[in-house]
């Protein structure tokens, strides 16, 4: 608990002071990064702690986005809108999760993809809500403290939800249910012999991840003001999976870093060269070849290695500032 509070506190402070050090464009870009960070962390939970690689996690994100976009015609209350986004994603997760968690590995991947394809087809035929061309919404966030219109305001809004999501996930993975989930991923047969019902724990994780992705999708609209069936594309499903991979599978924070790296590179490199997919591909291959290691693991490796150089005698007791980066070690 202490550790979760500590790392959340540090994350919160980082978010609070970050805009002081970065350019306005980066603040704008970070808004998107934070939304995708929530999205990627939620997928990271089922992929890295539950062994459920969903290629259709974007379905929940897309549903959240469509829910807010469509309902914003009738109400501007952000609590209602985000609540509805979470609820709809949760309902969809209950139905699809019930079927999907009975499968493993490639079959899980394909089933989740299939559900998403269904949504893709439905939304592209939904002429009333824009069909293939997408649907523009005009939403302004207002939590009761006035309208949030500036980029800085949006950044802090997304930052708040990001830190909250991080904290909740951190609690979950260290609590009994999270530990059981991880044990299930590592050795399901043994967990069953210990009296645990695998479906219960997988379903819990699937629902948490689904609701969180729905929330991220709902938040996304406040930045883009636009939804389209592309949210349900294989492309989208694969992109968020790549974020999890390059950030660090099996950690809470890794996928957030992955989202950051992905969005950042996409925006920067694509202005310099149109070979951006190639560079991303190479990065992805390198990380997959390194096996399971993402950016977070790399940072951990470098910090422990660096510490060994400086303090050969006490290399195991990392000072606090290093532990921030290595904070996922415990989970």
């Amino acid at each position, binding site marked *: 608990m202490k550790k979760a509070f500590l790392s959340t506190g540090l994350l919160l402070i980082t978010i609070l002071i970050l805009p002081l050090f970065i350019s306005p464009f980066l603040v704008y870009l970070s808004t998107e990064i934070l939304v995708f960070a929530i999205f990627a962390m939620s997928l990271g939970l089922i992929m890295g702690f539950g062994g459920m690689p969903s290629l259709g996690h974007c379905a929940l994100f897309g549903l959240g986005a469509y829910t807010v976009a469509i309902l914003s015609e009738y109400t501007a209350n952000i609590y209602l809108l985000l609540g509805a986004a979470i609820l709809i994603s949760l309902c969809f997760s209950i139905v699809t999760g019930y079927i999907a968690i009975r499968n493993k590995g490639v079959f899980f991947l394909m089933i989740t993809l299939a559900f998403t394809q269904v949504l893709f087809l439905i939304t592209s035929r939904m002429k009333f809500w824009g069909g293939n061309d997408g649907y523009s919404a005009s939403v302004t966030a207002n939590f009761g403290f006035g309208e949030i219109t500036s980029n800085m305001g949006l950044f802090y809004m997304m930052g708040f939800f990001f830190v909250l999501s991080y904290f909740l996930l951190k609690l979950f993975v*260290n*609590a009994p249910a999270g530990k059981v989930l991880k044990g299930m991923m590592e050795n399901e047969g043994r967990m069953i*012999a210990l009296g*645990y*019902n695998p479906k219960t724990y997988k379903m819990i994780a699937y629902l948490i991840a689904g609701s969180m992705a729905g929330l991220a999708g709902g938040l996304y609209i406040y930045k883009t003001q636009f939804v389209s069936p592309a949210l349900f594309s294989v492309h989208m499903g694969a992109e968020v999976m790549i974020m999890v991979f390059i950030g660090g599978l099996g950690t809470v924070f890794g996928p957030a870093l992955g989202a950051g790296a992905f969005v950042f590179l996409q925006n920067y490199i694509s202005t310099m060269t149109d070979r951006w997919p190639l560079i991303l591909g190479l990065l992805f291959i390198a990380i997959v070849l390194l096996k399971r290691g993402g950016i977070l693991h790399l940072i951990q490796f470098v910090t422990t290695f660096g510490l060994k150089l400086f303090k050969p005698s006490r290399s195991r007791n990392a000072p606090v500032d290093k532990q921030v980066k290595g904070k996922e070690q415990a989970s």
Partner: protein
Amino acid sequence: MTLLKIEDLNKSFKALHILKDVNIEIKKGERHVIIGPNGAGKTTLFNCIYGTLPLSSGKVYLAGDRIDHIPSFKRTEKGMGRTFQKNNLFEELTVEENVRLAIMGKKKYRLNMIKPMQNYTDLAAECRRLLEEWEMIDRRAVLVKELSYGEQRLLEIILSLSTNPEIILLDEPTSGMSPTETSRFVKLIKKIPESITLVIIEHDMEVVFSLANKITVLHHGTAMMTASPEEIRGNQMIQEIYFGGGALSHD
């Protein structure tokens, strides 16, 4: 009192008829050892009793209740524990973490999603008691993958004991153990109270005769005979099949 009853159990893998009309009754408190050459179907029998594999036909009763149709994790809840022939542990976790995860299986708070697992003091206390009992307390902080093979075998048993079972199925617990580890193991097994019934698949005849008070001989998927150790020792046919040819020694 009969605790575990196996009635007309048959198991086939497609055309392979592995277990044929197996009938075994195991009484409460018994140390029931199952012997038989490799491929006789002993592990398959355990998998059928525990529900890891579905039966082709037959019935399994635990304390009078039919259990052959309920999922495995529910059999654990009903008081059945098992170990695996091949070590089946959480290799990346420490000994202590393995045991805690095992003990937590019967706790209501296993579904808690907020409070860190390490803050449950009852879990820590029970874990410590169990590890002390099994002389593994010094190894509590070691990663399981770094344990010796014999220690891992022992941890298998500790994990199966963590669920408070009434009956434990032990699949070749001493396989791969050194002679020292084996004698230490026998000593520890003898300390398990009679309230816990043991069913043990075992190849080492010395271990068999020092633990068993009932022996079942499984041969080509048939329970040829269930009898006391003395009767098994005195039986001419069994002597010829197993002790003469040395077919019981594990390859």
